[in-house]
């Protein structure tokens, strides 16, 4: 099948408007006769469910947690971008579009990104109307801050809990529709497969996680909004339940999977401390607005710090290597995530890591506290303030901005970050790859849509900060509700989709057989044992830096782990009850297939780009010497994989990317 992105004709700035003017609409009376399933109620699914219900469709929404409000979106800290230009610093739709395409290393679809930038301003209006308490300045207007990879202040935030507040906004909109009976909410339900009738998505098979019952649900269209697959690494900043199951199952039923090897490694996470660790914790990137990143210049100091003979605060300015400011003077500590992550790894690989494992660099707030303190003293008319006073005033400002993050750090590490610099290290955070979708957000299966982090379309090879929340809400509030109407306009006479058909029988049987296998298998090893083993191969060989040899080994090793898993996995308990081990087993089984495709995709992509660094592809000279080398001539495409049985047999389809409005050029942050 040839990939058709369905990008509308015409100049980029008119595409979305023209598109909306020409699609088929479903009249309100007919919407009542149409059912839509939304799987996942994070920012993407929650906003989509609420809006579709508002429009008049009957929505059935699913989430594995006990409430939509607990979806992983809740954890997003830093903020959400929008081209409002409230700060008058020159922001515009075009500039947001440009930054996003450039930040994504020219591997996203231009038309989608432009649309995202275009609707971004609406998102803020919508959320404020819903009562999302964004930060305000003293004049009562919305406040902004800036994020990595951009030169304007366009990030809206609610303390360090922006994701939480945006999700609660979408959740409240859902609650309104649940109360009206327009959304039927299925909490603690997990989608285990999709059902197709005559080639179209017409329903899902789900498991009630409390009773273990397997249920059939039908609809005229199915929307997948199940988030990212970062947990393929075992350790990541994702929630423990974040998984690839829904995305992987639809892949096996015909939806192409795009760019699986694009994951984002986030530069500012709390470093790993031991083998028992279950997850990594992110420290919002907004900290880089005020924190300066450094390691000691001299190896002697590194050793002294590791052995506890010196404290970081003992080192003078001259003894510190502020390596981001040194290498990238224009952006300094605010370079994009991939650049910051790689630079940290480079310093640690060179032996300058400051903690016991050698995998940590400092994020230092001392100069910010000093700078704010002096500014405050001026504002408050305190002449000749003492150093203590400056510190006190400055600390109060830093606390107001990042207090909850500092508190979180202290709880985990048991050190006070106001007094000693934080330690940070990169960790897997976000997946830019995902289910392939066209401009309508429809997958290669008719009637099957995919939105939010679960799809691939908007971020290219690297996601800039504060743009995932923007994409999730853009998809859910403003894009999908239109595009899905175009498809559903053919379904107004279809009537209810029955579930007592052979198509539902078959898929239900597949699902049940698999569950029966797990609870009856007489294995000897826990699910986590396999997950950790997979994670180690992924991080070592398919992580931030990759090479051909390692990737080939990884494919063989992952396959071997998968085979052992199916022989040796042990799942206590039964199928007809709440069984958390069984839930994990199904998810890890899918990660074990996805992981191999991930490595295969990375193997094909013989260029460094975005978050991933192909060791064979480095700039050898010139101003960019030592930086990652992208290869536009051969790799300006989206890789979309078609399932053919074993992940190693997947077939590659290429969607060539066209850049008509932005010139493809080397990304420079110097």
């Amino acid at each position: 099948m040839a990939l058709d992105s369905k990008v509308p004709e015409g100049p980029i700035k008119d595409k979305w408007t023209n598109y909306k003017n020409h699609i088929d609409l479903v009249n309100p009376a007919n919407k009542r006769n149409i059912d839509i399933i939304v799987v996942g109620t994070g920012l993407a699914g929650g906003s989509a469910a609420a809006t579709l219900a508002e429009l008049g469709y009957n929505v059935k929404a699913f989430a594995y947690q006990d409430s939509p409000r607990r979806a992983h979106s809740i954890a997003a800290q830093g903020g959400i971008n929008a081209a409002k230009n409230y700060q008058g610093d020159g922001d515009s739709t075009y500039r947001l579009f440009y930054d996003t395409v450039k930040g994504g290393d020219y591997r996203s679809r231009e038309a989608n990104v432009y649309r995202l930038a275009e609707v971004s301003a609406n998102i803020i209006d919508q959320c404020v109307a819903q009562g999302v308490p964004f930060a305000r300045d003293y004049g009562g207007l919305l406040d902004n801050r800036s994020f990595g990879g951009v030169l304007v202040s366009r990030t809206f935030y609610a303390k360090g809990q922006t994701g939480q507040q945006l999700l609660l906004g979408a959740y409240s909109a859902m609650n309104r529709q649940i109360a009206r009976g327009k959304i039927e909410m299925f909490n603690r339900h997990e989608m285990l497969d999709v059902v197709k009738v005559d080639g179209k998505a017409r329903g899902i098979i789900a498991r009630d996680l409390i009773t273990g019952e397997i249920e059939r649900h039908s609809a005229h269209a199915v929307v997948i909004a199940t988030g990212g697959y970062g947990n393929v690494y075992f350790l990541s900043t994702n929630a423990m339940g974040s998984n690839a199951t829904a995305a992987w199952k639809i892949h096996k039923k015909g939806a192409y999977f795009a760019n699986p090897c694009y994951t984002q490694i986030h530069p500012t996470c709390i470093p790993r401390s031991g083998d028992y660790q279950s997850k990594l914790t992110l420290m919002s990137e907004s900290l880089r607005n005020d924190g300066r990143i450094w390691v000691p210049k001299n190896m002697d100091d590194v050793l002294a710090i590791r052995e506890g003979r010196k404290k970081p605060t003992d080192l003078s300015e001259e003894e510190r290597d502020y390596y981001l400011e040194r290498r990238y003077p224009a952006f300094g500590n605010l370079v994009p995530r991939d650049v910051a992550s790689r630079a940290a790894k480079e310093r640690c690989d060179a032996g300058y890591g400051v903690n016991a494992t050698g995998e940590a660099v400092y994020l230092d707030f001392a100069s910010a506290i000093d700078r704010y303190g002096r500014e405050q003293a001026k504002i408050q008319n305190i002449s000749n303030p003492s150093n203590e006073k400056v510190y006190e005033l400055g600390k109060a400002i830093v606390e107001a901005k990042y207090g909850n993050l500092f508190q979180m750090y202290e709880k985990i590490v048991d050190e006070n970050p106001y007094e000693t610099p934080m330690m940070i290290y990169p960790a897997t955070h976000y997946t830019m790859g995902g289910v392939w979708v066209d401009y309508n957000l429809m997958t290669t299966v008719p009637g099957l849509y995919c939105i939010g982090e679960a799809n691939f379309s908007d971020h290219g090879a690297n996601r800039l900060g504060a743009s995932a929340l923007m994409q999730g809400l853009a998809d859910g509030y403003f894009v999908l509700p239109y595009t899905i109407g175009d498809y559903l306009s053919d379904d107004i006479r279809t009537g209810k989709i029955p579930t007592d058909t052979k198509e539902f029988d078959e898929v239900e049987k597949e699902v049940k057989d698999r569950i029966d296998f797990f609870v009856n298998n007489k294995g000897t090893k826990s699910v986590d044992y396999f997950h950790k083993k997979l994670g180690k191969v992924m991080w070592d060989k398919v992580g931030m830096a990759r090479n051909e040899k390692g990737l080939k080994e990884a494919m063989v090793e992952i396959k071997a782990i998968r085979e052992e898993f199916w022989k040796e996995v042990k799942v206590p308990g039964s199928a007809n009850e709440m069984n958390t081990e069984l839930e994990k087993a199904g998810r890890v089984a899918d990660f074990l297939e996805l992981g191999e495709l991930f490595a295969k995709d990375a193997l094909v992509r013989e260029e460094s780009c975005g978050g991933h660094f192909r060791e064979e592809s480095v700039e050898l000279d010139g101003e960019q010497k030592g930086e990652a080398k992208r290869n536009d001539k051969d790799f300006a495409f989206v890789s979309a994989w078609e399932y053919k049985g074993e992940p190693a047999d997947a077939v590659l389809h290429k969607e060539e990317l066209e850049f008509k409005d932005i010139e493809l050029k080397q990304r420079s942050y110097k």
Partner: protein
Amino acid sequence: MDLTLKIWRQKDSNAKGQMVDYKVTDISEHMSFLEMMDVLNEQLVNTGEEPVAFDHDCREGICGMCSMYINGEAHGPDRGITTCQLHMRMFKDGDTITIEPFRAAAFPVIKDLIVDRMAFERIQQAGGYISVNTSGNTQDANAIPISKHAADEAMDAATCIGCGACVATCKNSSAMLFVGAKVSQYALLPQGQVEAADRVKNMVAQMDLEGFGNCTNTGACEVECPKGISLDNIARMNRELMKANI
């Protein structure tokens, strides 16, 4: 550290539960409490026993899912945190730790340490929202100026994570801190004014219907709340209710 754990085991909502003793060894003080539970569960799986079911997801104190009652306190010793943020450095080698589900009539046990907090959902569905259309035709956000003070206060109320510790720790199983926080967030914002009276009446009515107890101003909820939601919110809710009833 070596520890003895006394854990509530209950097969499902109909079964009778009981405390069961377990031993865990070699626990590092840097582990979180849930990582310690992972160690126990790995041990149980390896011996073919069913692991202890407990709710958790984000493991960074924000989703509100984890909900253990540890040594007689919601989310355990240490203030201002959820169970996933509790660290083993709060315990000593040789300690015996008692672990129970959140107990309240309105939070029935589903299994082991997992309880059903759907009552909170229904309270929010009764009016915890602003009835704005999600069509994208809203006015420009800066056309609704909000004083920094009001926005900050609304934000403080809105940080409630819906964990239910306030209910679990209250001798009356009152949900007023939670409901107060929700009511306050909207009461403090101009957008929430139009429906304020109906909202508070409906939410409080639903709260009563769910079987939560009444507030007797003991203040235990505020002490145990991981997000520092203050009792002022209960007072504000009461004022709003009075206003609505006049």
